[in-house]
């Protein structure tokens, strides 16, 4: 079976032009393939480039060099060469990303934030809101919060909105940045349940899981970040 995500020789560094032109090499050579139904946990201490790799896979950071092949329907696209419009299209339909922090949009209610990616894929308003409500219920977000903008929510509540949004659409590829970081026991179990379901459906996941228990439970294998440094 062909991988959904195929990373070859990916390197990424940051040049800080206004701080003496210092260049920080973060990733030197990432080779990683992820197949349908696989969950790869990025493993390494903080500062080893886990978040940088995840953000690069989402097109949030530019690929320095190397290839980053993404299966998109019947096609394969190298994210390193993709145009902004192509990346937007990939994010709409192929790659989902649950970041650690919710980027709050003024005045937009939690329910609409969760429904938005479904609406963007053409799902009717009613069906999208229905599924959004089901996800929020499953993640124990109290109904009284659904129609409020999440700016004032707690960290854990915001994170669950973010998770609901990320799981609202059946993306073939899902990137998870510490999805259980600020969650307690029951909510952690709900998130593990969601991860299990999408893996069973054939989603390919790349994630950062600091919580060892969660990692043990969901990861098919680990990718050791020290490999990313070995050039």
């Amino acid at each position, binding site marked *: 079976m062909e991988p959904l995500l195929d990373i070859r020789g990916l390197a990424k560094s*940051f*040049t*800080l*032009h*206004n701080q003496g032109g210092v260049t920080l090499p973060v990733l030197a050579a990432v080779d990683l393939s992820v197949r349908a139904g696989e969950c790869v946990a990025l493993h390494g201490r903080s500062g080893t480039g886990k978040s940088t790799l995840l*953000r690069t896979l989402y*097109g*949030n*950071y*530019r690929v320095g060099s190397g290839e980053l092949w993404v299966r*998109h329907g019947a*096609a*394969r*696209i*190298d994210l390193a*060469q*993709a*145009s*902004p*419009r*192509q*990346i*937007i*299209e*990939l994010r709409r339909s192929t790659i989902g990303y649950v970041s650690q922090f919710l980027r709050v*949009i*003024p*005045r*937009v209610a939690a329910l609409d934030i969760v429904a938005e990616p479904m609406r963007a894929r053409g799902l009717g308003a009613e069906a999208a809101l229905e599924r959004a409500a089901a996800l929020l219920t499953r993640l124990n977000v109290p109904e009284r919060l659904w129609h409020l903008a999440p700016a004032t929510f707690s960290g854990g509540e915001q994170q669950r909105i973010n998770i609901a949004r990320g799981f609202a659409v059946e993306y073939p590829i899902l990137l998870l940045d510490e999805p259980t970081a600020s969650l307690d026991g029951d909510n952690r179990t709900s998130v593990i349940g969601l991860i299990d379901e999408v893996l069973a459906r054939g989603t390919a996941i790349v994630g950062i899981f600091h919580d060892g228990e969660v990692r043990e439970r969901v990861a098919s294998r680990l990718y050791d970040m020290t490999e990313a440094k070995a050039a």
Partner: protein
Amino acid sequence: MSALPLLDEEPPLLVVEGLTVAYGARVGCRDVGFELWPGEVLGIVGESGSGKTSLLNALSAKIEPAAGRIRYRLRDGTMADLFDLSEAARRQLLRTDWGVVHQNPRDGLRLTVSAGANVGERLMAIGARHYGEIRGSALDWLGKVEIDRDRIDDRPSSFSGGMQQRLQIARNLVTNPRLVFMDEPTGGLDVSVQARLLDLIRGLVADLGLSAIIVTHDLAVARLLAHRLMVMRGGEVVESGLTDQVLDDPQHPYTQLLVSSILQV
């Protein structure tokens, strides 16, 4: 397998090549090129004097560029060179297919006639004559931009800055344009008023499938509204790309400086 077979079968709405604006010896903007697709929002960011407004004025046919081409896809699908069109055809385009939202609502509204007339006027310019229908559309649009319908007969001079800006947006969108230019649409407004306006613009652009070019010095506004960004300095585009990529992984020294200069709340 072909490398990039994704959605590029759709032709762009606007194609800009080598656009240069000069005021005598002084250059407003130099050699700017980009394409804009239907439904896409392009943000142009940079500080005062970076050439953003010169570029916008040339794009919206307010001033004639010293060099370069602007081509626009008309409703019948043909690609027209903006400055090959007759003056009358260009004005017709501005009145019907395009909208321009100015930073100062006073530049885009007529303050001495009622709110309803401000909206209705654009409709009359494209041939609407039925009073009831024009008033109906005006009422409908006041509702969409969250202005109380019973303010329809009031003059915009009695409106707050935020309301005036929303009225200006209604006036522009009532003719169902395909391309809207916005120059610092939230500039000069209180932050709470800004948030409401941004949310409104965001919703309208998505619901109507509009293409928009938004000039702003506010990177947070750009992040919220634009799919793609062009960063300008000294009349030139120094960096362009996907909005969050430009803001989170800026490559050019000037973009890095802009991004790192944002105060954290």
